[in-house]
């Protein structure tokens, strides 16, 4: 697990607000929840937005029908407490919210090679956005690309650089229409990332674009 003090690139206020209000596409929520599992600072900021939700909850009330309390009590009276939540699982490169979508730890990921030392595994996809794990071999590059929408990339292991910055374990890179980049993994070891995108990426060279069509990048 990355040292929280060494995370340099964090989530934006607007992403945290969208997560707190439930407006984030599920694929993005996976990336946000994964970062919040690693980062104290964003965790504290995220909790602040929940507190604000609680404060807003206090501001309006609607009358319930007669007997609502009695009906609810009748439902729960015989029930004991819910089971205590999961016990902590052994440490893994993948934080719990990601393990939930993989169905296990890093060993359980079913990678599909994209060529050039890059592998991916789609974690979740719906009409709004896609979340995938990427594995970039040490020194290898993800094809140079622009973005048709928003992209959140969270580093889980290793590191990459792309001309905008260097991103290590726990770091988040946000990219949008204005960003063109080519992430290159550090030579030290494979870089494992979680990437969420809300529209198809645009690749600049022909061959990777073809690969994009085949593999659904």
């Amino acid at each position, binding site marked *: 697990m990355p040292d929280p003090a060494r995370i340099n690139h964090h989530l934006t206020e607007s992403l945290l*607000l969208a997560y707190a209000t439930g407006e984030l596409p599920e694929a993005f929520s996976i990336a946000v*929840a994964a970062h919040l599992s690693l980062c*104290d600072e964003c965790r504290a900021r995220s*909790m602040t937005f929940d507190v604000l939700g609680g404060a807003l909850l206090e501001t*309006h009330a609607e009358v319930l029908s007669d007997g609502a309390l009695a009906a609810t009590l009748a439902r*729960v009276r015989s029930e004991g407490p*819910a089971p205590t939540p999961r016990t902590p699982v052994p440490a893994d490169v993948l934080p719990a*919210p990601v393990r939930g979508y993989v169905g296990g730890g890093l060993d359980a990921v079913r990678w599909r090679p994209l060529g050039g030392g890059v592998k991916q595994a789609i974690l979740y996809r719906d009409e709004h956005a896609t979340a995938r794990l990427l594995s970039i071999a040490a020194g290898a590059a993800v094809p140079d690309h622009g973005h048709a929408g928003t992209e959140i990339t969270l580093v889980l292991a290793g590191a990459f650089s792309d001309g905008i910055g260097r991103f290590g374990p726990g770091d988040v890179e946000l990219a949008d229409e204005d960003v063109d980049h080519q992430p290159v993994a550090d030579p030290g070891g494979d870089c494992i990332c979680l990437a969420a995108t809300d529209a198809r990426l645009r690749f600049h060279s022909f061959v990777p674009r073809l690969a994009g069509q085949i593999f659904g990048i």
Partner: protein
Amino acid sequence: MWADEMRALSERRDESAFAALFAHFAPRVKAYLMRSGSAPDLAEEVAQDVMATLWRKAHLFDPAKASVNTWVYTIARNRRIDILRKRARPEPDDLPWGHEAEADQADALALQQESERLAAALTRLPEKQRVLVERAYYGDLSHREIADETGLPLGTIKSRIRLGLERLRHHMS
């Protein structure tokens, strides 16, 4: 506020404590859902559901981590995403929160005070900004629109929760 009722509920399934919590929070959860676009019938059903969850999970409530209204909000928000948005909201790893009775009590009190201060700050926001905050929470802004909104005056509570988390980190190492 309400922490005593939560303890009574958690420790002895105290129905009068539950009735008091229900009288306060069920109408507020119903209003939250109606303002989020749900019809009154569904809003009432979900409000009862949320209160049933409060009964079942009372033993998991920790006043050092959240005030009761924050906790109820998160339960209601998750049900709303589930039912109205039909999607899941993955949650972060549980924090392995360090427990010390004295620190917990201080945290619970600080959290309560900061929550109240934030609620007061909310009422003092300029009308235009307050409406935007409400619209964001009632699901009336897309995440794209939220991305354009900044400048919420949230500084104060951060620092307090931050201290709790720093103590936590200290506990872990």
